[in-house]
């Protein structure tokens, strides 16, 4: 743990690398808008969706689920001990959604026509729902985050107003965000025969919802550990252990759903004979769901930040991200005659956007009462006000 | 085609041999498939499986160049089956309508006979040609017949059911049927299989299937094209089809016939108009420098055949001998060209080509160009052709072109020939030829007729204006001649006498400068020049002067009528009252008389009572709008159709109904003596020729090997067709036409087309949509061969023959497979020839590989069978 906390060097390598990546991304974006998608991506008619959809949209949205989960845990379920991690989670979520929106503006063939969405509704399209939800939820997150800004600026009246609507806002946020976590799954429902049967199921939306719930606490563990290392502030072990428990609890439900779904479809045998897809399944579910469940529940692991971190990462990377990648890319059929592996520019955009987000996170944490906020968490004035307002 | 496209739907069996109908004549597959839907079997015989084979019920993989063995085997199979199961055949047809029973000169010797070594009697080795005297009928004026075959259902042939030797032994040794047996008994399935690579059981299956069409009322059609004709024994391939069709009673009937799927859209028209060196328009024989052709009378008597009267039971039947009308046609032609000149004089205007010593066909022409100088050819007018890519041995042909002083080309694109002087690897400064290109209007940019394979003369109108300075070829021709004539005129006026100006000055050529196609159509039809030309349609009346002639039988000798091409006489006539009513918009007033160009008719109703798809009022076809030639063979002696379901023709007691009857008159049994017309009116004997006597390389087909072959002839010691043309493409002392051996070039090659491209490709490689479908020159080879050579599909490979080397994209396919020939495994590969160095997408031409050798009779190059070697590039 210690060595992770220790800054490696005085020279801001991290910032430098992040900036470099961010600027590379900006350069690539110029290329994208000047020469079009074909010039810089490996996407093709064979594969109309690439890295950006899998990573930025599918993983991005899911990984930003920390926002709604933590908000729900703290403000709805009133599990106050998690209060200190709400704001970082919301900030992460907000930046995450910003990243999603930006990525979509890169990915859309004609982003300047995005407004058409407003005038040409297709209520049957899950993407329509996702589109609206992403917009609304980003706005909600911004509002949820706004108290930090107002606090910093000592703007009392807006703070009051936000405080007043905080709970409705949070509930709206939960409904909207879980709604489109669902709908991201619903989007895949159309690919009845394109997604490998090991993953395709009519309950994809539910699975997406549950797995997204699980990722919230896991992300907090992950980010908390990292930001603890970077910014030096500490989150109590109890919170981590608790988050781990919550994650593993949800994951158990998730695992049962996955297995039950296969069992009901009579496809359990595919786990053993559908080669090579089953290998991916085992890596995803074995390594990314079952293993974290076990780890989160081993007392020794619970005691170790590293252990918790690893368990969280396993789920985030394998259990969730790999799952989204598998369904939106790896085991989604590609048209005959085509192959797809992202171009370096596609990677540059995805990574660059993350770099931008990280830098913004850095700045936000420095400028706004995000982590400090929980250090002062006990100071009544700051969160009792909204609570009181909501209660009244 | 003896029949026509739509008629294919009437067939009970379709034998596609030497044609890739689906790819090269896509439209005809509509009718093939219609026949198939009604139960007809479709058989495809080809070296490789193609898009045609994909639709066939039976695909027979054959070694290239072995069709005669295959067909000979079929003839033998049929003869034997006919002997044993006579009930399965239309023996009356064979007896009455073919020369099966005719007796041939006793001196006749067959290639398999003692001491013949693969040659017929009598080969004149000094002059390298046959003396054909022994091929003729024993008595040319009145044929003698094998009487046993002239009895009812051959009942006189009493030992017919005995063993083979005994049975056949009973027949006259020199009767045609026996001669066929004597020759083709050597073509047993074991031997044929060894030569062709077709397994014996497949031979049995295909022979049995096709022979079913021998039954009375059954029809089989044979569709062929370049797979049959591009061989040194091409015409004999077609003869083999004819023999089979006659034996099976398939000529003249609906759904039958020997059907050449002709090439370019108007190639039928081009041969009808004699764009060939051996004929004048309407298939009149070309004038040569032989003594007999020195005068008009001599020429006419030389080319007008005498009738051979049929023997035995048939005695009294009238052979008709249509060509007896030759004088009418020749005289009318001369009058069309030089109306104001006495016939004997205008005859002298006709050029007389040399009868021997010069080859006027394509290969001979290129050789003469290669020779250069005053002995050769110095200047070339090239009118819509691309010999630098389309002719054989392209590297040599291209090299030869540099000897030209000038070249004038009329074309719609720059092709390989026009740009030969700047082709890759050639230094333009070393070539002195001056090249002019006259931009021509394309086919949709001009008006005129196009004759399809079914002989339908279909009028087309201009759809769009030609681009830029392009004008129709016809306009070019008209203006060009006017200027030439002016030059002559000027010279005459200037008193120069070094040239013979009369043929040019006197030629009828008073056209306006543009769009005279309709006027030319009238000239081809012909009109009355005097007031005493009787009108057979209205006995006792006469044509007005200038009135278009109704049909060619009304043409007159002695210069009373003109006709630019007797075959077209009847296409453009005085409009009948019915025509004036039904086709008012087509009526043109010619010399004051309302007339109609029937090629313009577009009536989609099949008004023929028989409903066999004749569509008599859709365009017009020669001869006389007769849709099926030799249709008289479709009925029995009483005029009843053999096939009541598909009657081309039927006698209703007083008249013929259906198609325009061949030859006229009543059915044989109901006709007066002297007009008992036999069906094959174009033959001087009036019957179908199982046995022929007018080809250069034999009276019946015999197996020879291609010039470049992987084996020695398994049938006789004579390796190649003795009369084949072997080119010598000499340019500056180098003979480009070298012959490869199987040792160096172990793979059999054939060349062909694909749907996506046209000929040398210049017209399709320039069209983006077609170019993108098939941009690359390719070679197709079997997966088995490719494995051996380490080639995978998509590789670039080198294909070499003794005459050159090309690079091509390898298409490895299961459609090509090894065959077993004479016990040895052999591979064949397929090479298209649609590429060249001009145009939008480029590639090597398959013709770089092909040899300059040609058919004994027509000199068509043998581009379907040669040897090569394939390597990974």
């Amino acid at each position: 743990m210690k060595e992770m906390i220790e800054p490696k060097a005085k020279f801001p390598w991290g910032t430098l690398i992040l900036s470099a990546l961010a600027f590379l991304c900006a350069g690539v974006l110029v290329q994208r808008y000047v020469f079009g998608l074909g010039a810089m991506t490996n996407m093709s008619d064979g594969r109309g969706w690439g890295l950006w959809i899998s990573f930025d949209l599918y993983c991005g949205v899911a990984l930003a689920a920390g926002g709604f989960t933590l908000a729900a845990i703290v403000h709805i379920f009133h599990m106050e001990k998690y209060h200190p991690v709400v704001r970082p989670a919301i900030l992460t979520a907000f930046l995450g959604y910003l990243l999603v929106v930006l990525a979509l503006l890169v990915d859309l063939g004609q982003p300047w026509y995005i407004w058409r969405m407003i005038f040409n509704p297709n209520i049957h399209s899950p993407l329509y729902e996702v589109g609206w939800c992403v917009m609304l939820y980003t706005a909600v997150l911004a509002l949820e985050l706004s108290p930090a800004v107002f606090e910093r600026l000592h703007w009392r009246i807006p703070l009051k107003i936000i405080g007043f609507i905080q709970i409705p806002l949070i509930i709206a946020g939960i409904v909207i965000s879980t709604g489109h976590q669902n709908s991201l799954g619903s989007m895949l429902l159309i690919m009845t025969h394109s997604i490998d049967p090991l993953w395709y199921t009519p309950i994809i939306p539910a699975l997406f919802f549950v797995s997204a719930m699980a990722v919230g606490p896991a992300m907090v563990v992950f980010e908390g550990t990292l930001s603890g290392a970077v910014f030096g502030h500490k989150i109590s072990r109890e919170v981590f252990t608790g988050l781990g428990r919550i994650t593993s609890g949800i994951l158990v439900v998730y695992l049962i759903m996955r297995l039950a779904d296969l069992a009901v479809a009579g496809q359990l045998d595919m786990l053993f004979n559908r080669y090579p897809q089953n290998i991916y399944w085992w890596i995803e579910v074995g390594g990314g769901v079952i293993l974290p469940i076990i780890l989160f529940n081993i007392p020794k692991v619970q005691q170790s930040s590293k252990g918790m971190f690893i368990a969280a990462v396993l789920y985030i990377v394998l259990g969730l991200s790999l799952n989204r990648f598998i369904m939106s890319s790896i085991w989604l059929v590609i048209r005959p005659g085509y192959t797809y592996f992202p171009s370096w520019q596609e990677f540059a955009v995805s990574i660059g956007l993350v770099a931008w987000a990280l830098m913004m996170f850095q700045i936000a944490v420095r400028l706004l009462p995000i982590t400090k906020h929980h250090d002062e968490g006990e100071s009544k004035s700051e969160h009792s006000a909204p609570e009181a307002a909501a209660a009244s | 085609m003896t029949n026509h496209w739509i008629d294919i739907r009437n067939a009970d069996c379709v034998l596609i041999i030497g044609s890739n109908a689906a790819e090269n004549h896509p439209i005809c597959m509509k009718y093939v498939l219609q026949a198939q839907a009604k139960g007809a079997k479709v058989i495809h015989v080809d070296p490789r499986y193609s898009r045609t084979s994909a639709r066939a019920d039976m695909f027979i993989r054959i070694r290239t160049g072995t069709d005669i063995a295959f067909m000979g085997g079929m003839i033998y199979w049929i003869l034997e089956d006919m002997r044993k199961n006579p009930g399965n055949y239309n023996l009356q047809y064979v007896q009455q309508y073919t020369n099966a029973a005719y007796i041939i000169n006793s001196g006749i010797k067959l290639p398999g006979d003692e001491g013949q070594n693969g040659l017929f009697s009598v080969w004149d080795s000094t002059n390298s040609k046959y003396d054909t005297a022994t091929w003729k009928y024993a008595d040319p004026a009145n044929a003698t017949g094998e009487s046993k075959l002239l009895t009812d259902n051959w009942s006189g042939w009493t030992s017919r059911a005995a063993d083979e030797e005994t049975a056949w032994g009973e027949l006259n040794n020199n009767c045609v049927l026996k001669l066929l047996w004597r020759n083709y008994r050597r073509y047993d399935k074991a031997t044929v299989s060894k030569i062709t690579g077709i397994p014996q059981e497949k031979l049995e299956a295909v022979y049995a299937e096709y022979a079913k069409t021998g039954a009375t009322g059954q029809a089989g059609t044979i569709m062929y094209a370049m797979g049959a004709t591009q061989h040194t024994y091409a015409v004999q391939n077609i003869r083999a089809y004819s023999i089979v069709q006659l034996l099976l009673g398939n000529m003249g009937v609906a759904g039958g016939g020997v059907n050449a799927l002709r090439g370019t859209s108007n190639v039928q028209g081009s041969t009808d108009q004699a764009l060939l060196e051996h004929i004048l328009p309407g298939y009149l024989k070309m004038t040569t420098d032989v003594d007999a052709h020195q005068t008009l009378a001599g020429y006419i008597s030389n080319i007008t055949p005498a009738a051979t009267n049929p023997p035995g039971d048939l005695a009294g039947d009238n052979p008709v001998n249509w060509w007896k009308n030759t004088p009418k046609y020749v005289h009318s032609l001369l009058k069309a060209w030089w109306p104001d000149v006495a016939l004997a004089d205008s005859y002298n205007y006709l050029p007389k080509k040399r009868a021997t010593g010069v080859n006027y066909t394509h290969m001979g022409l290129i050789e003469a160009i290669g020779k250069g100088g005053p002995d050769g050819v110095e200047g070339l007018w090239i009118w819509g052709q691309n010999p630098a890519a389309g002719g054989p041995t392209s590297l040599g042909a291209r090299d030869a072109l540099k000897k030209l002083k000038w070249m004038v080309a009329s074309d719609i694109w720059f092709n390989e020939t026009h740009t030969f002087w700047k082709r890759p690897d050639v230094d333009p400064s070393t070539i002195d030829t001056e090249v002019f290109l006259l931009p021509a209007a394309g086919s949709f940019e001009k008006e005129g007729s196009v004759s399809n394979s079914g002989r339908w003369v279909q009028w087309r109108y201009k759809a769009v204006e030609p681009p830029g300075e392009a004008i129709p070829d016809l306009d070019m021709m008209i203006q060009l001649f006017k200027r030439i004539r002016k030059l002559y005129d000027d010279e005459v006026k200037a008193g120069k006498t070094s040239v013979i100006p009369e043929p040019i000055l006197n030629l009828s050529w008073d056209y306006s400068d543009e769009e005279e196609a309709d006027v030319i159509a009238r000239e081809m039809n012909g009109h009355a020049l005097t007031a005493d030309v009787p009108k057979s349609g209205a006995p006792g009346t006469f044509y007005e002067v200038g009135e278009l002639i109704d049909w060619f039988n009304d043409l007159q000798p002695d210069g009373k009528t003109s006709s630019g091409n007797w075959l077209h006489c009847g296409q453009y006539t005085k409009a009948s009252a019915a025509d004036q009513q039904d086709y008012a918009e087509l009526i043109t007033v010619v010399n004051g008389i309302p007339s109609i160009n029937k090629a313009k008719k577009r009536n989609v109703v099949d008004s023929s009572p028989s409903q066999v798809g004749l569509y008599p009022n859709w365009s017009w076809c020669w001869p006389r709008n007769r849709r099926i030639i030799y249709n008289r063979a479709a009925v029995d002696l009483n005029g009843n159709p053999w096939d009541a379901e598909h009657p081309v023709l039927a006698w209703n007691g007083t008249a013929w109904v259906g198609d325009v009857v061949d030859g006229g008159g009543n059915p044989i049994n109901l006709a007066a003596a002297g007009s008992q017309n036999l069906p094959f009116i174009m033959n001087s004997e009036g019957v179908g020729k199982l046995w022929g006597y007018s080809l250069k390389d034999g009276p019946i087909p015999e197996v020879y090997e291609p010039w470049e072959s992987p084996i020695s002839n398994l049938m006789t010691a004579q390796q190649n067709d003795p009369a084949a043309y072997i080119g010598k493409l000499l340019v500056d002392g180098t003979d480009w036409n070298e012959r490869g051996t199987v040792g160096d070039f172990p793979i059999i090659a054939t060349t062909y087309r694909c749907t996506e491209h046209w000929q040398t490709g210049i017209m399709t490689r320039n069209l983006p949509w077609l170019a993108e479908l098939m941009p690359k020159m390719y070679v197709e080879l079997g997966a088995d061969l490719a494995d051996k050579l380490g080639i995978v599909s998509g590789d670039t490979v080198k294909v070499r023959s003794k005459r050159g080397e090309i690079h091509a994209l390898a298409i490895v396919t299961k459609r090509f497979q090894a065959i077993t020939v004479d016990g040895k495994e052999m591979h064949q590969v397929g090479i298209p020839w649609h590429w060249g160095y001009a145009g939008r997408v480029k590639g090597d031409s398959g013709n770089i590989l092909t040899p300059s050798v040609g058919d004994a009779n027509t000199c068509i190059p043998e581009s379907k069978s040669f040897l090569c070697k394939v390597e990974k590039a």
Partner: protein
Amino acid sequence: MAYGVLFDGTRCIGCRACSVACKSWNENSAKVEKKTSVEGGIQGKAVVSSDTFTFMRYREIGEGDDFKWAFAKIQCMHCLKPGCETACIVGALHRNKETGAVTYDQGKCIGCRYCMVACPFGIPTYQWEDRTPWIRKCTFCSDRLNEAENGMAPACVTACPTRALQFGERDELIEEAHKRIEESKAADPAGVGKYIDHVYGEKEVGGTAWMYISSVDMTELDLPWLSEEPVTKNARTAMSLLPYYATGMLALMVGIYFITKRRQKIAAGKHEEKKG
């Protein structure tokens, strides 16, 4: 009532006249690719693209005497329940009930390309090389069909020399397809006939306007194996449940909020008590 096209593999000669006619009518440009396809034993276009709405697919199937060279024309199937239509975020893809054509309105499209992945047949394509790219696909030549009573058949159908493509009312075509299959069986002494007894597209994914019969199973021509359920079914069900979900979630959250709030207050009171 809607139109359809029946492709009969036993009538197709693979001539690609349909492909060229399509380009001609739609004024689609040509592009010579660096590496041409040699798939199925023939050189040529083997994919749909933004300027190729249809192509012929060739497959060499079987060995020896059973060898077959089979062809299939690939284009938009004009599904009765089109995945692309349900998918499209802005409703730019739409099935016309009268004609059955699923057409695209570029005036609505934003370029998300969801339609491309949502199509079970892999049909919509994109103008990747363009700065302002649009989706492109076969239109069923609706601009020809629409010409009121004077309506024409699609360009590709008109060009087909062998009537391997037949245009008509979908219901009638289905009847015709089964008739051909049955007649062929009846004509065959073995009772098999030349067709595989399946009309591809009659039922697949809820039915498609373009349908196939052939002597080989269409999956051998790499048409996807698909169940009869429309691809849109699950997604549409999910979407229709969304309002219920949202209401439920809302109620749940409000409920939990108040319950836990109370609990917390009680707990806080206890705490206070203890403290005190």
